[in-house]
């Protein structure tokens, strides 16, 4: 098991963590715990909460925040950054191709039925290139680490990746509570993220529009990520709108204000494709704006991310990512994929069923850690009932080996204790540049030995530092 802080033969901790470790040695555990409580109190008062689905009274919960930062050295970060940019370039090229020339299908690299039968594929997008040629303005690439030089991409989030507000709030909490740590460490700043998001959004607007009007589109206060939507709108100085606030007037998207209507240029939407426009997509949706997609196809509005981008982060497409990267960039992938068995394939299914105990099985279209099986942690009964599900609908699942996720210590009542982590850096795409914010969201499984880091399943978060030098 690789611990990012302590797996080092010198017993002084790994290089990036040494200053932190010596600082920690001089801290009083009780005082730290007290500060930890203070942080929690602050989060609640400010209302940094998320809603839990399937919970009747719509209770709002805190995502537990751990005080011990996760630290990456500059060279580690630069390696990741390069790999991420390569991947995001390929994702955008793939999307443009899938919705236009479809050369990758003709080249026999991705099977056509995987595209056409995929619910994330939107035929409405065919033959259309979004403003500025950008499909995924914001991407979150989930990365796990298993050793000093072993990083894997767990999944790509090309639809509406969330979590960036926690990256920001975690940092400002740390700055507030331990300013002295930042004088001793050269931590790369992340505070520009909202400004850069804003710039990358307006970079796709036609140049003849002087001050583009940007809004954030939210499903509303009961959405699990509502806090984040309001946070980003606030930081960008953008209006936070819902589908019912908008209408189409002369082909343009406008919002209804207290003093009339106002034209929009960019919608940073945090609602899923299905709920954008009841005329083009789910006709039962109450969240959408009728006619929005038509205005989009006329080029009158920027939608970020583009509808249909989900075909690139689908768990079935994921297993083809190495070939996709090679096809569009001509390069070898810098970041590895995790080997993945597609259960739709009879041989793979056989293997998965035989080795269920060692594997992680996920739903192809699932997210948030719901509906997955972690073989090593499952009971006999869970294994056999999952095997039945697999056999009855194999194409719904993919399987991966259970990887030994790296650990970073968290603060517990009895001191530091290692817990498994993953990592989601955030990428901003403009027509001519791709930027990765130096940091990201580190999610941590708070239960000893647990591999599930999702906040909906009791995971927590950490501040993530990229050291300058």
């Amino acid at each position, binding site marked *: 098991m690789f611990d990012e802080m302590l797996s080092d033969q010198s017993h002084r901790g790994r290089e990036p963590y040494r200053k932190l470790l010596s600082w920690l040695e001089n801290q009083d555990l009780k005082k730290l715990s007290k500060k930890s409580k203070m942080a929690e109190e602050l989060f609640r*008062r*400010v*209302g940094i909460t998320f809603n839990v689905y399937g919970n009747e009274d719509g209770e709002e919960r805190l995502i537990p925040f751990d005080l011990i930062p996760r630290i990456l050295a500059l060279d580690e970060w630069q390696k990741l950054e390069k790999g991420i940019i390569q991947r995001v370039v390929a994702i955008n090229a793939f999307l443009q191709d899938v919705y236009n020339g479809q050369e990758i299908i003709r080249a026999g690299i991705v099977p056509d039925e995987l595209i056409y039968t995929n619910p994330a594929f939107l035929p409405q997008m065919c033959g259309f290139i979004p403003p500025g040629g950008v499909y995924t303005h914001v991407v979150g690439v989930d990365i796990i680490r298993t050793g000093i030089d072993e990083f894997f991409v767990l999944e790509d989030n090309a639809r509406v990746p969330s979590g960036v507000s926690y990256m920001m709030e975690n940092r400002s909490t740390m700055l507030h509570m331990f300013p002295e740590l930042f004088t001793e460490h050269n931590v790369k700043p992340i505070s520009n993220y909202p400004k850069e998001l804003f710039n990358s959004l307006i970079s796709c607007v036609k140049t003849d529009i002087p001050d583009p009007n940007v809004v954030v589109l939210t499903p509303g206060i009961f959405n699990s990520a509502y806090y984040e939507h309001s946070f980003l709108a606030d930081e960008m100085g953008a209006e936070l709108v819902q589908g019912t*606030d908008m209408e189409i007037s002369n082909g343009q998207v406008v*919002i209804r204000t207290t003093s009339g209507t106002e034209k929009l240029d960019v919608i940073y939407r945090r609602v899923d494709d299905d709920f954008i426009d009841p005329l083009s997509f789910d006709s039962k949706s109450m969240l959408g704006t009728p006619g929005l997609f038509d205005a989009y196809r006329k080029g009158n509005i920027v939608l970020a991310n583009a509808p249909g981008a989900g075909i690139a982060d689908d768990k079935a497409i994921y297993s083809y990512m190495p070939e996709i990267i090679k096809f569009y960039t001509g390069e070898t992938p810098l970041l590895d994929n995790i080997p993945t068995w597609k259960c739709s394939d009879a041989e793979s299914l056989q293997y998965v069923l035989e080795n269920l105990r060692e594997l992680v099985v996920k739903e192809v279209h699932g997210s948030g850690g719901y509906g997955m099986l972690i073989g090593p942690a499952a009971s006999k009964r869970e294994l056999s009932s999952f095997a039945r599900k697999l056999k009855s609908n194999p194409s719904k699942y993919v399987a991966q080996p259970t990887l030994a996720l790296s650990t970073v210590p968290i603060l517990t009542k009895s001191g530091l204790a290692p817990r498994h982590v993953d990592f989601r850096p955030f990428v901003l795409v403009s027509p001519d540049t791709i930027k990765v914010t130096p940091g990201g969201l580190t999610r941590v499984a708070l239960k000893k030995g647990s591999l599930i880091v999702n906040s909906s399943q009791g995971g927590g978060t950490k501040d993530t530092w990229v050291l300058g030098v």
Partner: protein
Amino acid sequence: MLGRHGNNLFWMARYLERSENMARRIQAVLHHSLSREDEGREEWAEIIATSELAHLFEQKYDGFSMMNAINFLLRERQNLNSVITLITKSRQNGRAVRTSLTQEVWMSLNETWISSEALLRRPVNIHDLPIVLEEIIKGSSLFRGALYGTMLHNDIFNFLRLGTYVERADNTLRNVYSKYHRLLPTANVIGVSESQSQWEVMLRSLSAWRSLNWLKKGRIDPFSVADFLIFDQRMPRSINFCYYEVVSNLTDLARLYKKEYKSLDLARTLCCQLKKDRAKNIHRIDLRYFITEHIIKNNELGSIIADDFNLI
């Protein structure tokens, strides 16, 4: 500003004002009831009846007791006008527009909600009641302070103030309505001391008891009560004061948006009407008719404001 956000701001302020009024009324009636053998049964029944909730109350509780009534008014979630329901709704509206609020305003509202949820999680007992009520009222005061001290005085502010004053006018009107018979010239016949204690409850629930007592040097009569609550421009809960504030906030909006509004016309008319009525001798006003008329007009004002500004 989005029309929907205007609506959220308006109702966030309305619900919070309503919850404060409810807490003040409970406080006043409690004060009155503690010295009575029947625990102020009539007064409590009156509050429950004015919100048309008698039926729900009977469903929820075996019979009347003061603490049953108080818990029903404070923490029953099925009661749409209980303090906890109102604070929750106010905060929900606030959460939908938190980008329009300063951190301090939002936090004062959020903290009021968090502490009310904690205080009202279990049935309140008589011992804790004064502190619970004080805490709830203090939350509203903090909110007001943060509002005046930190918010831009722009349209966001105007919609919040409109919500507050439309609601407050309604509350004062309904309070006077429930006691109008005690304010009639014939009140003396019913019994001076009984009427006195009734006005006192009403004045206290509008936090007007001390100020009127001070202004009148301890000599309060039914006419001075009516005059004070309806016409006095110094009294922040009088009808006149509320109308004046509504006119002033609507005038700001009309100037900002460079438009004319029906709601402003109506609010001005109501103000003029009040001025004319004040010139008359208060003995000659048909109080019951007068109050009913104003409840209806004030209600109408609320819906016309919604129409004028796309509040949906």
